[in-house]
């Protein structure tokens, strides 16, 4: 029969050994392997343009003005280092007002370039907060609406912009899981490459 003292001793050694093995050895070994095998992914999937890093492929950014595709609304001002949920409830008055305002703003921005656009055509992702505040993607429907505006402002044929959308659309995982989405940063980088502003 082991006494309490002996149990405490065993427990203390176990706690320290486990902390060392699972708190240091395990994560550092994984870090080492990941840094060797997948350096780009392990460091944040950075995207470069014009010789400098302009963001991460995985983290959405704020785009304003008429020449860019816009990301989804963010409650966090697209923060990558202080994230939180918008926490808008399903019946909340604030939620109703925000959607109303976002819908009006989206139509105001895009309707001049897409005359037939009505609010029935606006996809939900365009006017609702993403969860992370930095959703890197928008839906294909959202991108196709914005394409009219971007093509007109940048003086590109609509077909060429739509081809860029298709090239920057990420499919479902293994073709089945999740939903397709258009990567906004990569799409805007591609636009800058063929039809730079200025």
């Amino acid at each position, binding site marked *: 029969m082991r006494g309490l003292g002996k149990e405490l001793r065993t427990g203390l050694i176990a706690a320290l050994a486990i902390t060392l093995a699972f708190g240091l050895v395990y994560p550092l070994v994984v870090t080492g392997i990941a840094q060797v095998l997948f350096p780009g992914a392990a460091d944040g999937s950075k995207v470069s343009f014009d010789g400098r890093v302009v963001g991460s492929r995985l983290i959405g950014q704020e785009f304003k003005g008429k020449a860019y595709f816009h990301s*989804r609304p963010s409650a966090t001002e697209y923060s990558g280092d202080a*994230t939180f949920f918008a926490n808008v409830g399903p019946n909340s008055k604030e939620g109703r007002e925000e959607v109303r305002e976002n819908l009006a703003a989206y139509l105001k921005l895009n309707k001049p370039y897409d005359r037939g656009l009505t609010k029935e055509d606006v996809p939900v992702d365009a006017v609702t907060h993403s969860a992370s505040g930095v959703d890197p993607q928008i839906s294909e429907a959202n991108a196709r609406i914005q394409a009219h505006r971007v093509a007109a402002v940048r003086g590109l044929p609509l077909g060429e912009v739509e081809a860029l959308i298709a090239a920057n659309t990420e499919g479902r995982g293994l073709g089945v899981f999740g939903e397709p989405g258009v990567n906004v940063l990569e799409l805007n980088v591609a636009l800058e490459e063929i039809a730079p502003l200025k």
Partner: protein
Amino acid sequence: MVQGYLQIAIFFAVVLAVVKPLGVYMAKVFQGERVFLSPVLGPVERGAYRLLRVRPDEEGQDWKRYAKSLVVFSVLFWVLLYLILRTQGLDPWNPRGFHSAPWDVTFNTVSSFLTNTNWQYYGGEVTLSYFAQMVGLAVQNFVSAAVGIAVLVALIRGLAARSGSSLGNFWQDITRILLYVLLPIAVIGALVLASQGVIQNLSGYSVIHTLAGGTQVLGQGPVASQEAIKVLGTNGGGFFNTNSAFPFENPSGFTNVVEMFLILIIPASLTYTYGRMIGSQRQGWAIFSAMAVLLIAGTVVAYAAEQHGTPAQHLAGLHTHAMAGSTGGNMEGKEQRFGIASSALFTAVTTATSTGAVNNAFESLTGIGGAVPFSNLGFSEVIFGGVGSGLYSMLLYAILAVFIGGLMVGRTPEYLGKKIGAREIKLVALGVLVTPLTVLLSAGLAAATPAGTRSLAAGFTPQGFSETLYAYLSQANNNGSAWAGYTGFIQPHGLGNVGAYGITFANLLGGLVMIGARFLPILFVLATAGALAGKKVSPAGLGTMRTDNPTFVFLLLGIVILVGALTFFPAILLGPIAQGLSTRPF
């Protein structure tokens, strides 16, 4: 909708395919047999026993000694984690120079990670160093998972024992579970995730000059290694505040399914392990079936509800139907890459198991979609549940079902040939009721006192009531997901914990609830195992109520639903169902 149901169906099929092989493997691990990893890990295991000075083969423990080792181990880890988090200012790998959080927040966090809850009043990337996350929290993700599995294994041994009082050796169980089950799967999982874009580094935060000329700071850190065990151990505490919704934790539809897979495989496979260890696979499949029915039902309800959209969206004039290039539905608080189906599935899986990781904002779920997490928690996390804890809780319900079934037909109840006597049924009833009682008392206290309502984000509305009830449901059931507006930690000056303060009531009550609702049931389970271990097994006769057929599955489902509904239905009416039935904003 068809594509959505297809992804859900394929996911469940893949999990089902793993149940037998992983179940057999874990049974061998728990029974001390050789497995294919023994040549590599055997020397490490033997070294661990020498270090701990235990001779597991000679030191079988009865339930009291098993419980004593478990409590000693847990108390020591509580103290160690508290010290690590209180001394954060001294940490290496602390690129932002974070100080410690207020003491009451630390109390909550330590209790949370020790109990496999991972309720988070803090935001990882704005309050914690890489050291604290890695050496403090991620270690608990392994340890708390191993403790849950160990308790289950002890209960199974008690049920399977032909004589004697030994439930095995706690130190051996912990060692083998950590080495042979959790570590290898976590390593593979971490590398798969890292290959897909989950970050894994010790660099400082990246300052980016964005394409449009702005500035964006990106949090970094050893995320993949923590992410893998976060899901595998049904822990759920995110490295980042927005958890598995944040792309550095969950970058694609593929990683999302990997994370859900890692969440479910151990709880699902343990039912097979159980069948094997008691010598009847049919018993294991019966329990599995009851769990699967509830999980699939919850998934379908959540998916349909979320696809419908919310009253606020419809009142604003938004159309939430599907169209070419968009799935429609309630995308508020959801990510495009997951869409409605993979968000609803994740929601059901993470709350049926006691994981609590989220890939979408629960506070923004529709009323009825939100009722799914409420129900899953209301059923006391027995729908696969936490690793180990889900099945040991479900086995208590199985014994309860046998008892009630026995009363109905007027026979002495037996489970697996063991007579269920007065002592056993008292212990089982306590084990089943302690968590729901804790929820009702703590949520009532928090909803009715000014100290409790300080934590509300949505004020005195059904939404605010949902926040409160869910906070204590989640903490008592060791889940950890949240209606995230509910807070116990205020950071007025932003970064570094400077000027931050906790809401002491929420932090202390929550911490005590988590500890009580974790360890009291564990003690009742071990006591039940001890009481059953010494019982003789009587051969099944014509009058024996079978516990491996569909009739028993229905009975078990009935008992689980009855206990959950009787306890929580009135409370859930006031929150999510009131919201689901209302078309008015408030």
